[in-house]
């Protein structure tokens, strides 16, 4: 599980640009980054040792011709790119091959036609596999994120408001404690606890529930989500509490808060109208980054509760040299991270007028 230390937020300074130009520049950079990822993705997996055509099957009965047939089917018989037949081991090939007939070009062309390819392992279209998995992950991590943000923010506000009281200390200590819990360990503990209370230990739904009315189907999924979401929430809420607390305490020490107090506003009004909104900025950064990685899934939680998410799919695909799945998944993650950061940038200027795109 990734964890990010709280860090002070540094607003943009001294740059005044045309609003549209800034936006365009940001979009251009995002597109450039995605393009870079697409290219990197292709080479990243091909420098790994091993032959995908043989990775799944290690069997004496697999004849040379059969391996060759697999390579043809996956398009692995073509040179990787001009001058290189293979990257690991490095095999120099002819530089005068038709560039349109290289793995690299075919990959690129397919991608722009919305084709992610066929999984080497399951022989299913990558888009199908990833959509299934993505939806599961978004559901689980989405619920976990929302819960941990809500709970984290509430605890954080309480702690900052009642700074240096028993409430504050309790919440800080608890946050530090749950934040430092090993995810895997907590998940196992909850799994054992849940198994004695009839909670499901694997999967996303009860087999056969697809014939039930929609509401019951959702209830069933919710029931299966209980333990993994609880794990996720506990692990993440500490982080949000601590960031919210420290950020809000900074804001509460500002002069304008003193002014507000002098004006006779109630604590609730001060928090609601003046403090929380400003204190949210660092939290937005963290949330944006975390949301970006949401797609990658929480591999450990998914593994313990056999949640069929994207994290697990990536983990399995690495072992099987399932390049199309890996390329697709990495592309998806890259796009989400870039998009999340892009949206975070936009949110800043909304939350804090000092961060302006004039």
């Amino acid at each position, binding site marked *: 599980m990734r964890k990010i230390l709280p860090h002070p937020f540094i607003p943009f300074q001294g740059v005044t640009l045309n609003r549209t130009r800034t936006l365009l520049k940001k979009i251009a950079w995002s597109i450039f980054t995605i393009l870079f990822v697409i290219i990197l993705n292709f080479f990243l997996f091909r420098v790994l040792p091993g032959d995908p055509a043989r990775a799944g099957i290690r069997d004496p009965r697999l004849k040379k011709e059969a391996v060759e047939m697999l390579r043809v089917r996956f398009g692995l018989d073509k040179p990787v790119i001009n001058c290189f037949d293979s990257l690991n081991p490095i095999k120099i090939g002819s530089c005068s091959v038709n560039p349109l007939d290289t793995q690299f070009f075919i990959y690129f062309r397919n991608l722009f036609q919305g084709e992610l390819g066929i999984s080497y392992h399951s022989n299913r279209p990558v888009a199908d596999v990833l959509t299934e998995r993505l939806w599961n992950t978004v559901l689980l991590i989405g619920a976990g994120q929302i819960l941990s943000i809500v709970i984290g923010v509430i605890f954080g506000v309480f702690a900052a408001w009642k700074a240096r009281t028993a409430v504050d200390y309790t919440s800080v200590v608890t946050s530090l404690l749950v934040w430092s819990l090993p995810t895997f360990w907590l998940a196992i503990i909850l799994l054992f606890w849940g*198994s004695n209370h009839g909670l499901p230990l694997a999967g996303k739904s009860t087999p056969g529930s697809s014939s039930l009315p929609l509401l019951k189907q959702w209830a069933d999924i919710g029931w299966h989500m209980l333990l993994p979401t609880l794990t996720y929430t506990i692990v993440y809420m500490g982080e949000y509490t601590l960031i919210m607390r420290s950020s809000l305490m900074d804001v509460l020490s500002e002069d304008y808060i003193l002014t507000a107090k002098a004006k006779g506003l109630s604590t609730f009004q001060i928090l609601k109208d003046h403090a929380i909104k400003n204190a949210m900025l660092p939290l937005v950064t963290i949330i944006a980054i975390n949301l970006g990685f949401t797609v990658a899934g929480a591999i450990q939680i998914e593994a*313990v509760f056999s949640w069929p998410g994207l994290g697990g799919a990536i983990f399995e695909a690495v072992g099987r040299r399932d390049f199309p799945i890996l390329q697709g998944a990495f592309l998806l993650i890259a796009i989400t991270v870039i998009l999340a950061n892009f949206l975070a940038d936009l949110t800043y200027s909304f939350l804090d007028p000092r961060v302006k795109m004039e």
Partner: protein
Amino acid sequence: MKHKILYLLILVALILSACGGGQSAGADASVVHIGWAGSPDSLNPGLAILTEAYTIFGLVYDSMYTLNLNGSFTLNLASSVERSDDGLVYTFKIKDGVKWHDGKPLTAEDVSFSYNLYKDTPEYPYLNGYYTPYFSSIEATANNEVILTLTEAIPNIESQLVFLYILPKHIWENENKIEFENTTMIGSGPFKMAEYVQNEFVRLTANKEHFATPPKVDEVIFQTFENQDALIQAIKTGQMDMVTEMPNTAVTSLKTVKNIEVVIGAPFSPGVSDIIFNQIKEENCPTAEEGGICTGHPALRDRNVRLAMAHATDKQKLIDVVLLGLGAPGLTLIPDGLGVWYNDSIKDFEFDVAKANKILDDAGYLDTDGDKIREMPDGSRPLTFRLNWPSDSITAPRMAELLSEMWAGIGISLETQAVDPDALTAQCCPAFDFDLMLWGWASDPDPSTLLYVYTTESVPTGSSETGYSNPAYDKLYAEQQVELEFEARKAIIWEMQRIVHEDVVYIIPFYEQATQAYRTDRFTGWVTNQPKVELSDVSSLAFIEPIK
């Protein structure tokens, strides 16, 4: 405001859990819940590789023969079979009244369609590559007979046909054979495919009209557990009625749990663990074009060194420590789980360190520089071997440690390192760029697959791991491939095992045992008295009954 949201969320969670709780409590008594650690890779029989897929095929489809848990075969889909005198033509009379799950009749047309499909689709790497190479033609006759003509008279037709599942022509002829995912899976077997979610579960319903083995239960659900602790916990708490696998560490604790029976025996596809000696000779090294590198330590080409290492290997200790006792000492690549084919008359090299040391002394491998490691007779290099194993192996690291200790006792040192399985394949075969490896095989019901691994012919193909080459053995291999008399073929196969054991081509530390468990308070009738253990086989699932 935020408090309200929280309360709302808690409320929603409570409602959801209330609904869900009701559901899980209302489970039908006649649904068998099976927990396993995998999921089928594909439901297209031509493309699938994983055993999980084959388990499902075995339940949903029929094939010409059934493989029994004692290793024998029973004719299944045909009422009779006739073999021509030259052994080239088989005539199967297909049983009448067999129906597909969609109600259409299963006829000889479907059988010949399926066999032709497997034969003519080279993109089916597994089935086409191994099970159909001897098929010349397959025809269906008017009176529901299938005539299978072979190119060579082979002795093991049953094992060639047992995994060639019969597919419905009326569905498959309209599909792209390679892209077809086959998730609705119309078959003719004792179970029907009801619902399949990859990496989650497979739900099968009973085909009570099955011609041979109509199940007594109504439904079977295979649930995927990525986490083995969860799997064990699920059978302990009764969420699962049976689990198809478990870590050896869980066996002792599970045995003590009330209402749970742990079953131990040879696996359905018997497994072999091997210690591989790279003994390839220069003249046999595959060409650079074929990928040969051949950097093996020269000492390993000497049988005396291999023999000494065999004498210095305490197999029982390896079994006790690495497998927690759940294994049988190994002899050759042909495991005890293969029943009649396993040569149990071979006497293994006894564990005797003194004898091992003497063999090395006599052969001239002496420790000339006093560093406790022997040198080659010409003093050129010490007996220090690289030992590699696939990094995904659970047992290998412990085994490597134990072997280092054991062989240190005879003046042999090891440089041990785990390697990514794919990189290891690249190092292994046909590159022969290693000294020693720990790896293993799963066996086909017929021994010829693993016997092939010892042949000279298999050296450049990447199947041979040792580079072993023995013309006498190769001749016997060719003979058993065409010997139609069972006893005569068995004698050849036993002799082949004796030869490779005598030549110390491998050290086979053990044959791993399968461990499965079922709950005794849910269903009765699990088959546990056979040499092989497979509770998710038709032999159990079609016969178990709920306990009232």
